[in-house]
């Protein structure tokens, strides 16, 4: 069942690619939307049949390369199921949004279907090599999206930077995996077996090096300061749909790696160096917000708020590794907050990036000061952006508040100073979003000179249909968080327990 959910998009992609006759753009997008919708339905069925207290479920195991200790092992628990669902939701939203795409639609649809399989595969993988395969392929897929559908020559340069930079991260990750593999006896890449065996307990410097490799690999992908410099150009030059997936799903691969691999597999060193992650997280949160404040390009600004939001997650996972002065409940809360933040950030930032895509399409620029008074001609667009911006800065009633509240409450006991510093990030994000909103939507109407038809149309039906559900879900989670938290909490309690052992 899980395998079906993962590989359904790939099968559709192969079918679309190998179909011998030319396919019209509308049919391509139609097939893409249908595939994404079916996959979402299947994921919903997974969720319906999921028992929150049942640990890993829907597990499947098959030998892949037994002599090298590699197996096809998949399964979901409370950490991965919300991300799996998020992936399906976002890819469907992106498919609907792309109804207006006109450039090489067949290849575009195939690429996104391929990426969907890769993302779903990563969140369900329970084998390090399987995880790595998807981790690497996500880079390849996103490279082609940015290089092929980005903004011209600069797009290709940004894509190259993205590929090279994140590839360094993935190879560091691979070295870390090899370190884990060699430490285990018998040698294995299986995550559950490694978590049970804790092969690096008491291995001193060796374990620290493995954690360093994993930490760098995951931090590049997350991205945490100082490994974040690939993110702004990649986001700015990518097409809106690509940005939404990059921010909404691909960044989560890094943070998910922390809770799935680094924490349970290296509990001893994780506790030892938890402070480093707390510091990196707090610095990312504050630095990301500060740099975002200085941006004049709306897409870069949102990209830097991603650095800020992911900083909270890193802070929380670091705090979950501090035993002194904390209790189980606080650590569990921190991990739950981290996972909730991943989901929440995916929904809200995905929506924000799709909305900047709308902005670019109408005005051909991302510069904030080029626009003014857009609320007049485009009230629905203004409302959507305002809602998304408020959700992003963590106003109560939206998912961001639930997530950040848990993160800060859970982390406070572990490291009060760092947490207090990180909280200022919220203030900064509030300032920058309010400033951008005032500039772009209020005042007299002014459009950039490059805008194609001299007017600013409101959200079209596909755009509304793509964005509204994302914001709606963020609202639902903000008001009724229980169903989501019920799924996440048992799993984060398990992770916190594994770290504390």
């Amino acid at each position, binding site marked *: 069942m899980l395998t079906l959910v993962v590989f359904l998009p790939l099968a559709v992609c192969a079918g679309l690619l190998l179909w011998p006759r030319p396919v019209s753009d509308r049919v391509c997008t139609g097939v893409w939307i249908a595939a994404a919708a079916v996959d979402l339905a299947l994921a919903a069925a997974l969720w319906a049949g999921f028992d929150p207290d049942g640990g890993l479920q829907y597990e499947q195991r098959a030998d892949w390369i037994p002599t*090298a200790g590699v197996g096809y092992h998949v399964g979901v628990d409370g950490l991965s199921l919300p991300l799996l669902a998020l992936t399906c939701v976002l890819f469907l939203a992106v498919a609907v949004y792309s109804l207006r795409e006109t450039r090489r639609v067949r290849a575009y649809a195939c690429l996104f279907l391929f990426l969907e399989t890769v993302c779903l595969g990563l969140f369900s993988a329970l084998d390090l090599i399987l995880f790595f395969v998807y981790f*690497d392929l996500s880079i390849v897929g996103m490279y082609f999206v940015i290089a092929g559908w980005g903004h011209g020559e600069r797009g290709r340069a940004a894509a*190259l930077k993205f590929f*090279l930079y994140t590839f360094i991260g993935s*190879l560091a990750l691979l*070295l870390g995996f090899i370190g884990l593999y*060699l430490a285990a006896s018998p040698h294995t890449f299986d995550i559950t077996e490694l978590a049970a065996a804790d092969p690096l307990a008491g291995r001193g410097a060796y374990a620290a090096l493995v954690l360093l490799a994993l930490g760098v690999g995951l931090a590049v992908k997350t991205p945490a300061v100082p490994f974040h410099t690939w993110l702004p150009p990649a986001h700015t030059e990518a097409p809106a749909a690509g940005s939404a997936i990059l921010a909404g799903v691909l960044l989560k691969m890094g943070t998910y790696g922390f809770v799935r691999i680094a924490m349970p597999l290296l509990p001893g060193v994780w506790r030892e160096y938890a402070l480093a992650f707390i510091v990196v997280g707090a610095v990312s949160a504050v630095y990301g917000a500060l740099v975002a404040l200085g941006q004049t390009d709306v897409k870069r600004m949102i990209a830097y708020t991603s650095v800020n939001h992911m900083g909270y997650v890193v802070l929380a996972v670091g705090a979950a590794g501090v035993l002194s002065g904390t209790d189980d409940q606080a650590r569990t809360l921190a991990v739950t907050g981290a996972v909730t933040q991943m989901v929440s950030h995916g929904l809200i930032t995905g929506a924000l990036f799709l909305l900047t895509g709308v902005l670019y399409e109408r005005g051909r620029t991302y510069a904030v000061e080029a626009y003014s008074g857009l609320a007049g001609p485009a009230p629905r667009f203004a409302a959507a952006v305002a809602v998304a911006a408020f959700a992003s800065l963590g106003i109560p009633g939206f998912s961001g508040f639930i997530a950040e509240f848990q993160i800060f409450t859970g982390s406070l006991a572990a490291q009060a100073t760092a947490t207090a510093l990180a909280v200022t990030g919220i203030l900064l994000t509030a300032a920058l979003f309010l400033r951008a909103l005032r500039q772009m939507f209020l005042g007299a109407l002014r459009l950039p000179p490059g805008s194609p038809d001299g007017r600013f149309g409101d959200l079209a039906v596909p755009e509304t249909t793509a964005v509204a559900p994302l914001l709606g879900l963020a609202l639902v989670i903000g008001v009724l968080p229980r169903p989501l938290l019920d799924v996440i909490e048992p799993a984060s309690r398990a992770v916190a327990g594994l770290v504390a052992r």
Partner: protein
Amino acid sequence: MNRNLTALLPEICLVGAAVTGLLAGSWLPRHRQWSVAVLAAAAALAGLAATAHTLAADGEQTVFSAAFAVDAATGAARLAVLITLLLLLAVSAPGVRGHRRESEYWVLLMLSAAGTLALAGANDLLMLFAGYLLASVPAYALAGFAKDARGVEAALKYYLLGALFGVVMLGGVALMYGAGRGTGYRQLHTALPAAPYGVVAVGLVAVLAGLLFKSGAAPAHFWMPDVADGAAAPVAAFVTTLPKIGALIAVYRLLHQAMPADTVDWPLLLAVLAAASMTLGNLAAFFQTSATRLLAYSAVSQAGYLLMAAAVATRSELAQQGLLFYLPAYALTNLGAFAVVAELPHARRLEDYRGLARRRPALAAVLVVCLLGLVGTPPTAVFIGKLEVFSAAVDGGYTWLAVLAAVNTVASLFYYLRWLAPCFRPAGDEDRLRTVLAPSGTWAAAAACAAATGSLVLGLAAGAALPLADGPLLR
């Protein structure tokens, strides 16, 4: 003494077919000389069948006073070489078909393949040198086969360097013989610990020099880019792929079987050579504008990754598996890329590949699979090979080498992408496309697709293939 000739069936098939082809080629009219290629393919298939039988029936043994070992390494080499030979026949077909000396081309190819097999199985220094000659001499002729200025220059350079390294290697063999009072690996293994240190060290370095030349590793790699660029693309595919398989297995066998671990610190020597090879190859490949030169330098860097396994030959149990899996994986992936070059003979520069994705989507897909495969992107076979080799290096205590290899892998991505990027750019004018991206024939395209598919399948089915690389080496 074991004189079981049936153990050598794949080699005998190739040599027999070569001799038959040579004789037949002298009488066959030009339009019928293709039958020699068919003969070569039949010999390769027969060899594959014999190898499969040996592997299935546990026919491991040493023959002729243990001068030749038939074991897991030989089995893997035979599979890799013969499959590579089959693909090379297809890649060469469009260019050589109807050529005045067509049958000679096929014969030279078969002889060189037989020499490569002899290198891989050699368990005796003299056998090793004979294999070196048999693998090299036909290759010189192949490099200059087109008889144009660039080809002749390439052949001359290849020949001169080959002769130099051959002589050095022969000197090394003599020194080792003097030090170990024998040329068989078993004899050397027992006698070398008591031999004078300096003689063994110089002898080993000299023998390695010849093998490094064949595998295109630094510092004996200077011929590689010139030959790959000067000779026709199928020949370039051949020189960067086939000899490497034999030479690297020979290096591994020599170090693992003949060298006692505590006489000369050869692991460090090999680690340094590996580091130099991958780094120099990558740096040189960075700003190449010619596709074949780029692939040639990439082949140099790949030799570096492969030498990592040789460096930890006796220090990690994963080394043998890694090497024996990486070699065929590399051969398939590299051939796929070269087959694309052979299929588009007028596109020499990277810029010429503009618009390939629109015009020939299948070839663009092959390039994506093969070039990203050479980087080591999963799920292609090279990824598993790299995974194994990196694991072996870390396991053998050379973590710095694994880190360096990882850094090099990222660096290599840059130049492979420099080639891939133009493929997906809009083409511009139609006329240019028609002339520059003119196909050479269906055989090369088919070989390209087959190699790319093979590289993917081998990666996904690594679980079935890896056990073949397991098994003790025989002395």
